[in-house]
């Protein structure tokens, strides 16, 4: 059953999935990940995907992020059908349009906080002066401007996730995907990170799609998608006042 309230207008759709299925092969056994799932996510929204473990949340994020391919159906991000792109062009598309925030932060250990945030801009060949301006602005915005020279192993979990948020936003993407971003943090730090993500989403006018079990995350959601056994069973939009 899908509950819908205030669907986004067609021009404001950032993510559109049509009848997307994903099946994994474990040896000779086909394991369904997603089954004919369709959904749309509006521009500049904070969307949360909820569901029990193994329901397909991460698979759904991977497909939206273009780091995995569906077995059937189409995935469109910012009007681009990802299925029509080759590997290099999908990499380029991700480099320009999609930011990632991982559960384990996934910062590059040999790079400082500054360099980690700068890295996506190097991939898109942004000029050095512009890189510096954007990196410092974002590090300040996420509250770790004074930690820019530190390596990830010299930072706390919360600080690392702040760096990851800055890294995801530095290229000014149309979409940020966050897979269980608070799972490795204590509840207090997790709450701070969620608040930061939401604040940054509002400030940057970027769409966030977050998978989480965390009720604190769900409280912030503009839209909540509930999936179970690879199927979308509920969509809830927060009523705008």
């Amino acid at each position: 059953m899908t509950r819908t309230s205030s669907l986004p207008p067609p021009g404001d759709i950032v993510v559109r999935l049509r009848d997307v299925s994903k099946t994994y092969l474990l040896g000779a056994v086909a394991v369904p990940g997603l089954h004919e799932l369709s959904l749309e996510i509006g521009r500049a929204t904070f969307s949360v995907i909820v569901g029990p473990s193994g329901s397909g949340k991460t698979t759904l994020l991977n497909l939206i992020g273009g780091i995995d391919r569906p077995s059937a159906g189409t995935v469109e991000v910012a009007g681009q059908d990802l299925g029509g792109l080759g590997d290099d062009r999908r990499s380029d598309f991700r480099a320009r349009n999609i930011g990632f925030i991982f559960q384990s932060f996934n910062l590059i250990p040999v790079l400082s906080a500054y360099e980690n945030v700068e890295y996506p801009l190097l991939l898109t060949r942004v000029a050095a002066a512009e890189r510096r301006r954007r990196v410092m602005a974002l590090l300040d915005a996420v509250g770790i401007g004074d930690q820019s020279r530190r390596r990830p192993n010299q930072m706390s979990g919360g600080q690392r996730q702040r760096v990851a948020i800055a890294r995801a936003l530095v290229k000014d993407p149309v979409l940020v995907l966050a897979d269980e971003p608070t799972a490795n943090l204590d509840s207090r730090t997790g709450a701070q990170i969620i608040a930061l993500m939401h604040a940054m989403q509002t400030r940057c006018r970027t769409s966030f799609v977050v998978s989480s079990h965390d009720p604190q995350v769900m409280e912030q959601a503009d839209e909540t998608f509930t999936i179970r056994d690879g199927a979308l069973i509920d969509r809830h939009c927060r009523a705008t006042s």
Partner: protein
Amino acid sequence: MTTLVIAWRNIFRNRRRSALTLLAIVVGAVAVLLFGGFVTSILFGLQTNTVRAIGHLQVFRQGYFEFGAGKPGAYGIKDYARVLRLIRDDAALQPLIRVLTPTLQVFGIAGNFAENTSRTFYGRALIPSDRLRMWAWDGLGIGNTSLRQLAMSDDDRDGGVIGVGLARILHECAALKVLNCTDGPSEADVSPDLPAEDFSSLIEIDPPASSGAAVDRRPKIDLLAATVAGAPNVVTLQLNGVERQGAKELDDNYVLMHLDLGQRLLYGRGEHQVTGLVIQLHHSSDVAGARRELRRLFAAQGLDLDVRDYTELNPFYLQVIAMFGAIFGFLAVIMGVIVLFTVVNTMSMSVMERTAEIGTIRALGLRRSGVRRLFLAEGLVLGVLSASLGLLVGLGLSFLVNRAGLTWTPPTSVDPVPLRVMVAGNPLLLAGCWFGLVALSALSSLLPANKAARLEVVDALRHG
């Protein structure tokens, strides 16, 4: 921040593993450098000794090189003084030539009739001062440590030296006061049934010296050979000393005499000729050019002469080069394989440990080629670091070895020579070793780099 900077930092991420890899490559570099330096020293020494002894080029009559050993006199160069003049006056050859000197090869029987002993000999006749100048050649800069003293002079036309083995056989050791040399038993003791005389009857016994003439009291032997006309001829060689030869076969036959004496033996009262003209150049690199110019000159003058270089005259030279080349190649391949497996292992471990990181940078938008480039850069940086370190260590060790005062006796040589490892001042070896190791290291990382590049993003991220 470039790929190389990231690669540099990743190398120091697992310090112990990188240090071991570095050490393996450094050891490989040092082994190749020291052995290469030693081989270079041997080859330089061999070339220097060869060029000092027989020159860079020799001019013969056509056919002498193939058939002259059987009858050298028959292949004499007539009017060789004119040929010498032609070569000396040639504008293209003049600046290249250091020594130009005639030589004569003689085969025959050497005898000490007073001791009733004889044997066949191989003789070289030359101009002593030219030979001394040739021994001073040091075109490869190895020094004059083995510079010989020659117990002959241009004025002493009857004097010469013989091999220690021949001195022993001809019972001249005691007379010449040769160390570690004992006169052999007489033929009468060894084979009492043999007739006592050989060619001593051909020798005109010198009359007693008149009161006014100085008596030459040097030990002497008699040399018998067939003249060009086929008649037996004998001359007396006054012995000034011995010259030990590296090979026993040569040492038992060797006679070195003045050119004039050799010509008297081989040509008697006929026109004195030579069997060869020895040319020593300032630089070995000029051999091909000088040879070309000589051929042009001979063709223009209608001279029936052939030119051979020292590698043809001394096949042993190329054989030694080939042998050491094979040994060096074998060692280099072994070291290369060790380096290859070490780098492959290190980089594979690195890929395995950094799988999640590879997934992350791929998710951020790095192409597969970027991942491949990153790991290739790590192999390259590892190669540059270790090859540079290996060169420094190799240079340091070679410096120590060269100053340790060690000596060794090369094959066919008589005297021990300093053990030298020519690494410094050997740009080909240094550059070859450095570039070889860097290329090998980068090449070795290709396999792990491809493996990293082929990883699927979602699979790689699951390793986190």
